[in-house]
């Protein structure tokens, strides 16, 4: 008998371990659900971790109001199927109540505003651990992130003062007002995610598959036509066969030309990709330390 797990099963087992540890060590955990593939995979893993019970935490969606309609429809269907508890934190509400000010100017987006809504939502519900789908391979500031990532009472991450994390012994102790971000799929790569979705046949939003869409070519990527997109001089709307490699706000998520209309074809495409998946994300293009800066302030 060969007692050896393949890499996907080992990563799955590690993530389930982290999910159970979160439920055991914290009083009020929550799962940050963006509607993207990574948070869908975590939700799937959470089902596995607590089967046959329901997973013991709500899904929390930070809603910028700038969504792909398909992503919201998918979220609602999934919540219904799992009879999960969904909590929505609204960026629009944060704007209306004066907590944040809408960005203006050429590359305005609501991406940065989410951080305030997120931290307000965490405080309002007194969540002490927020499960997230961040992966260490995504971005270089994330490469040093812990599974159990401590946040001070301002919700901030201090990259130079992280708790050492050894073996599988996680320290989730905190003082009043502090909380943790927990990343069960830290060790997964984009390829692992897609292979796992294929292996487990996990449902994902149609946006990930190649489809015809009206888009505008801007900054090297195809931005979807939407009510939030204002054409600039010389730009025109074209119809292309595209798909999205990541899902964020409709205002900042660019698509790529692709014919991959099945999971198997996506895995094939990702395996020969020569650009990182966040290369189509305008939010990471704001400078070399863009992600690190947002993270220290409390971003996902």
């Amino acid at each position, binding site marked *: 008998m060969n007692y050896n797990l393949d890499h996907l099963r080992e990563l799955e087992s590690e993530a389930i371990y982290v999910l159970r540890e979160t439920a055991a060590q914290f009083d009020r955990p929550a799962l940050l659900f963006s509607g993207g593939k990574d948070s869908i995979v975590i939700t799937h893993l959470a089902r596995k971790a607590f089967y046959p019970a329901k997973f013991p935490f709500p899904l929390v969606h930070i809603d910028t109001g700038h969504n792909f309609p398909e992503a919201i429809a998918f979220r609602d269907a999934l919540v219904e199927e799992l009879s999960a508890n969904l909590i929505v934190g609204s960026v629009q509400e944060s704007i209306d109540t004066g907590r944040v000010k809408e960005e203006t100017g050429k590359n305005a987006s609501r991406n940065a505003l989410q951080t305030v809504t997120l931290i307000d939502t965490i405080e309002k519900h007194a969540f002490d651990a927020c499960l997230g789908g961040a992966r260490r391979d995504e971005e270089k500031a994330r490469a040093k992130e812990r599974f159990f990532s401590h946040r001070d009472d301002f919700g901030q991450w201090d990259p130079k003062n992280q708790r050492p994390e050894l073996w599988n*012994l996680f320290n989730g102790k905190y003082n009043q007002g502090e909380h943790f971000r927990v990343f069960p799929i830290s060790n997964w790569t984009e390829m692992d995610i897609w292979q796992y979705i294929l292996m487990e046949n996990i449902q994902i939003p149609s946006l990930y598959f190649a489809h015809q869409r009206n888009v505008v070519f801007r900054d090297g990527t195809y931005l979807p036509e939407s009510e939030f997109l204002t054409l600039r001089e010389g730009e025109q709307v074209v119809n292309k066969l595209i798909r999205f490699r990541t899902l964020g706000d409709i205002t900042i998520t660019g698509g790529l030309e692709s014919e991959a209309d099945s999971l198997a074809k996506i895995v094939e495409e990702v395996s020969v990709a020569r650009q990182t998946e966040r290369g189509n994300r305008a939010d990471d293009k704001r400078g070399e330390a863009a992600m690190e800066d947002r993270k220290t302030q409390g971003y996902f």
Partner: protein
Amino acid sequence: MENTNKTTDLLRFTTAGSVDDGKSTLIGRLLYDSKTIFEDQLAMVEQASKRKGLDHIDLSLLTDGLRSEREQGITIDVAYRYFATPKRKFIIADTPGHIQYTRNMVTGASTANLALVLIDARKGVVEQTCRHSFIASLLRIPHLIVCVNKMDLVDYDQEAYDKIVDQYRAFASKLDVQDIHFVPISALHGDNVVNRSEKMNWYQGSTLLNLLETVHIASDHNHIDCRMPVQYVIRPHSDEFHDYRGYAGRIAGGVFKPGDDVVVLPSGFQSKIKSIDTLDGEIQEAFAPMSVSITLQDDIDVSRGDMIARPNNQPTTTQEIELMLCWLGNAPLSPSGKYILRHTSNEVRALVKEVRYKVDINTLHRNEEDLEIKMNDIARVKLRLSKPIFVDSYSKNRITGSIILIDEATNNTVASGMII
């Protein structure tokens, strides 16, 4: 380029070294030659290299993550990197060599199957080599690869390489490492990293990547002594699963099967395994490192922190442990300090009963005079616990033999320990 083949396994390895050893260059080389680096990442590094006034692409820039690291040109914290070949998926714990070296190395080493030790061919075995190797042996990393780097700077000379290999073997005889390999490389030029060197025909062994791909890791887990720390009790309270109680956990050792006799510690109650459940159905055997949920035939009291083992093969139940402790905290160990000890899913309070000696990790000498334990110190200590825990020696099982200490006042993780 990553593979699409699903049946590959996972190798976790740690690297250690300072900037001068070319560690970042080696990692950059592995990622670059295995085609893991994407065009946009490469473009960023190219730009950054130009800004620094270099005429070649500085592959080490690929691995500097944080702003202050780039500013100071040093690596501060353990960084994790990923690449895959058609044979294996790899996780690198990239640990800095100078700042807080012990703390970072121990962290990286704790989950590694393999350690890469880098030696500068011009310098041979130096203090840092000994330090890295000792920590690898202390943390019981099963495999070790010694890369003699910068062979280009000694004209790819076999004699220089052989001398270092001999020197290292003499030193390593004092350590407890079973499986050691040596490779002469030039990370800068790529010799024997991914591609075989044309300048060292005298070397008949494998390239570094080939070694990483073929090291036998299936036996790295303990598949003999059955241990499952109970992590969480699953109670659905639904009509369909009314009286269901699943004991969820990650197998730490041995092979569990339905029908097996088991004992639950600390109660000592015995039962048989009724089923091993997953969302995908019942399974017929579970082994490390699988996460499963076990149901028992008898209704006995089991909760988080308990340990499921076999009646005829149990861990040691003890309220006093002796261990090798690595101090990680900023403040030194306080002899009267109160610490929380975390072992598997269990948590107890701990007092330091005795500090036996400190180890000078550069010379391996024992120091029995100066017993103050500060950050980066390694010491043999005895702890007294508020409740019994269920332990194996670290040499028998890295999961049931390891602990961390948490300072009750700050909640920080201040030490890690390997039970003797």
